[in-house]
């Protein structure tokens, strides 16, 4: 079952293994951690896994950058790489906004532990 070809196939997909491991690690961190900063870090790792995914999918083995030059025959697909530049910018914006919110939460609650915040909120009355 595990002949050389299968093992080569599996190893050849190393980028995608990395993607899946990062994705799950990040996702788990977002869900399991109570600290808001750690949640943001987890969210970042989750997003980075998608960046790696897009970058890997555009790469063609032996392909070069898509420039007009003699002797270059195979090109990698630049589109996913360009797309992910945009996604990285979006990711930075999301992270900075999340961190700004954490700062404000820390000012108002004196804690950034989610369970402690929930205990505090539980006792609050609903007023506009």
């Amino acid at each position: 079952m595990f002949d050389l070809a299968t093992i080569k196939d599996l190893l050849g997909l190393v980028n995608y293994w990395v993607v899946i491991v990062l994705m799950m690690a990040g996702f788990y961190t977002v869900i399991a951690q109570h600290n808001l900063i750690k949640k943001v870090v987890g969210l970042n790792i989750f997003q980075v896994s998608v960046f790696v995914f897009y970058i890997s999918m555009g790469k063609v083995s032996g392909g070069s950058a898509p420039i007009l030059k003699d002797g270059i025959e195979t090109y990698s697909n630049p589109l996913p790489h360009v797309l992910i530049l945009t996604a990285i910018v979006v990711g930075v914006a999301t992270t900075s906004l999340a961190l700004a919110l954490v700062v404000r939460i820390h000012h108002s609650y004196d804690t950034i532990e989610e369970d402690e915040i929930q205990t505090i909120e539980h006792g609050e009355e609903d007023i506009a």
Partner: protein
Amino acid sequence: MITASDPWLLLLVVVPLLAAPVCVLLRSPSGAWSVATAVSWAVFGISIKLLLTVLEHGQAVYRIGGWDAPWGIEYVLDPLGAFVVLIVAGIGAVTMPYAKRSVEKEIRKDRIYLFYTMLLLCLSGLLGITVTGDAFNLFVFLEISSLSTYVLISMGQDRRALTAAFRYLIMGTIGATFYIIGVGLMYQVTGTLNFADLKTIMPAVIETRTILAALAFLTVGISLKLALFPLHMWLPNAYTFAPSVVTAFLAATATKVSVYVLLRIIFTVFGDVDIFASFPLQPVLIAMALAAMFLASLSAIWQENVKRMLAYSSIAQIGYIVLGIALATEAGLSGGIVHMFNHALMKGTAFFAIGAVIYATGAVTLKDLEGIGKRMPVTMAAFVIAGLGLIGVPLTPGFISKWQLVTAALELDMWPLAALILLSSLLAVIYVWRVFEVAYLREPAITADKPADVPLSMLVPIWTLAGAAIYFGANGTFTLDLADTAARHLMGGF
């Protein structure tokens, strides 16, 4: 069907996008408000013009930079898109005049110009999602609208607005990231991001596991954004603690636009393949929709905070919309689509009215609302219209959409479904009645020395929406025809 390039499509997105930094430069609250109002009205005008174009020609197209699709990014508007643009732009146009006084009361003076900047960005993002014909471009607009929404929510007075915004940010980002994972998987197989192009390639590749994984990621990601039942946890707190204006605007537009994205994916991208056969999407969506209709309505009954009650009611109403979509027949779709419009009117009115009550009395719990019907008769009359609409009383818009949904269910011989739709309306009767009872049948706790005062600039928008609700409730021909056209177009006919 080649249509000429229509630059109004681009202006629809660019005008509010460029007006946002202008608000930052102006810095003065009234200056920013004037710009935002002017822009929102201009956008509403453009949306009407586009609707007329689309009804005449079937669609409107704009190719960015003159590049033909699928290489360039294409803005496309079909009847469904034009309908959603009309909803978003229309709600935007009534929100801005309402916002002036409400925002002055609820938001710190030195932050007001930023508030309007964010509201314009959010408007621009929501409109962008609706007009774009490119899957990745849609993601960018989704994030523009989402990021501005997080900021808007965090501007609420209560400190819990901050945690609500943070929670929404986490869940919203996960949803959006799921969406790009799905888009990436589709791109890997098809090599295109253009919706129309994806549609033509899809039948050849539907059997691959990659595409099925993409569909799963897309469905879950979008369902997070539209707060479909088990993924709705961010919504109640976000709507409860956001400033009143923001709650009304988001409740009427944001989830509708997410529903639009779901429709785009299911009926455009996967339009030429029978996904309901290769993927158990239908039973899942129907189950979630029913759970939303019942469990969210039940939760609404137990709420003391009226804003939170209306938020849970929104989740239930989204259930009706998704139910219509899941039926996947023309009648069901048109029921879902017309309910998007009708729910926007009703929830907009309801949240506007509650916002006015908060403006005048600062209270949002049922206990504080005792006798409010006598102190604020004009405002609460609008709330009554919205409440009756949520129940689905005849002559209100809610009746038209529920009638359409029930008919669609009966056409498919799904009579238990029709019975459940009616049964869940009874739950709406209970939570709406709780407010009526407190507002009209109890004496005011504080002896009302003066009738609570709401400025005209808030009353006019409230009654514009309430009036529209009455009109489209009594005469559903226009909206139903439009929804039918949109549904027929989505299902592939004309």
